[in-house]
Every structure is written in structure tokens, then in C-alpha cells.
């Protein structure tokens, strides 16, 4: 089964739940799935942000990362991150492309 990296650039609870539903379903089926929050998507990484989809994805086994640059731009320190979310370099996208992951920017 391929590995999947989803990129979410929009903040808050998504109006279109397709991306989070697909990512969760793939993880439950046994795929290795990562969600990377970039740009305003990083706002959902704050502890207390209204983003229940992230908790559902984490429960499904999806690794959730947030772009360090986007966090810095928005003044979100690592201490303010939601439990289970790790900061990451955007370079991970290129590394995973080179490793053959399916990368989907929603």
C-alpha cells in the first residue's frame, strides 16, 4: 500500500471534509499517512483551536505535522501546539516525493 502525505493550507475546521475523511480512511486501512499543516492550516495546530478533525485523524493513526515556518510567521511557539502535533521543515514534502510517497495538496 502506498504512503500518503496530505498538505492542508486552510485554517480551522474544513468546509469540505473530503481530505480529512480520506486521510483517516487510508490510515485505518493500514497505509502510512501524514498530514502537514502549512500556511493558515498551521492555525489549527494551536492548542484549543477548533479543529476536531485533527483529533479524529490522530486517533486513526495519522501523523500530524505543522510547517515550522508557518508557525513562526504566526507566532505559534512549540509550547502552544496541540498535543500530538510536531513541527517539521517543509523540506519533508520533497523528501517524501523522492521516497515515492503520494503527496496530495488539498
Amino acid at each position: 500500500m502506498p504512503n500518503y502525505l496530505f498538505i492542508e493550507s486552510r485554517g480551522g475546521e474544513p468546509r469540505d471534509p473530503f481530505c480529512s475523511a480520506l486521510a483517516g480512511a487510508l490510515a485505518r486501512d493500514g497505509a502510512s499517512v501524514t498530514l502537514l499543516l502549512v500556511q493558515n492550516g498551521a492555525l489549527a495546530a494551536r492548542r484549543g483551536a477548533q479543529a476536531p478533525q485533527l483529533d479524529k485523524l490522530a486517533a486513526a493513526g495519522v501523523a500530524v505535522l505543522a510547517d515550522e515556518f508557518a508557525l513562526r510567521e504566526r507566532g505559534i511557539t512549540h509550547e502552544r501546539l496541540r498535543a500530538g502535533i510536531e513541527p517539521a521543515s517543509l523540506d519533508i514534502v520533497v523528501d517524501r516525493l523522492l521516497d515515492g510517497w503520494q503527496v496530495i495538496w488539498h
Partner: protein
Amino acid sequence: MTTAARPRLAFALMDAPFESARTTTAFRLLDAAARRGCDIQVFAYEGAVLLPFARQQAHPNAVHGRSLEEENHPLPKDLVAALIAEAAQHGGSLDWVNCGLCVDERGAAETIAGVRRGSPGDFWQMVKDAHNTLVIPTHG
């Protein structure tokens, strides 16, 4: 590393310059690929064909009382040129193809060096030849 051994990545961009943070993120991704010595192929579609438009001009900011030099306005065409140079510096390449019909619609034929005109058929070929592809979509 031989040319054949270099990793090849394809990217599709659609956003026009000065409008979306996605362009900044796309350039950061191209920078990461360039630093890894990849052969990078970019297919610019719709508004993205204006990213390497040669007639972009920096400007002073009268509202804030800043001169041209003080404003130091970044221009996407300069960033595209820098990415092309960076890819070569690291032993890779960056081949930028503008969708021809999108160019004609926008009068964007004057581009910086290193940019060529093509069609969606070129993107098909890029995807076919690449180790992997990332499509960066626009959102309404």
C-alpha cells in the same frame, strides 16, 4: 551523479503572482528540490504563467514614504531566475514551461530567460518522466 541518476520532480502551479501564500510555499518547495540537486520541471498554468513575466517592476511606496530601494519589492520573476540558478549550482536543473494558451490570454509572452512555452501535453510528459509529481491547486 549522472543526469540519468538525478531525481526528477514535476510540479504544477496555477496561482498568479502577488495573490496567494501558495506561491511562496511553492517557491520554498522548489528551493528544497533545487538544494537536493533534482531535475525540476515546472508546468505553469493559468495565472502562474505570470510568475516569470519579464515586465514585472519594483516600485516605491508613496503611502509609507519609502523609496524604490527602501521598499525592496520582491518580484516573482527574480525568484524564478534565482531558483533556476540555484538548481544549476547544485548540479540539477529547473525547466519552466508556461502553458501557451494561458500566456496568450494574459499577454504574458515576455518571460525571463530559461522559460519556455508549452502545452498541457508537456505536463503529461513531465509526469510520465518524473519520479514524482505535486500539483498545487488553486482554491476558490
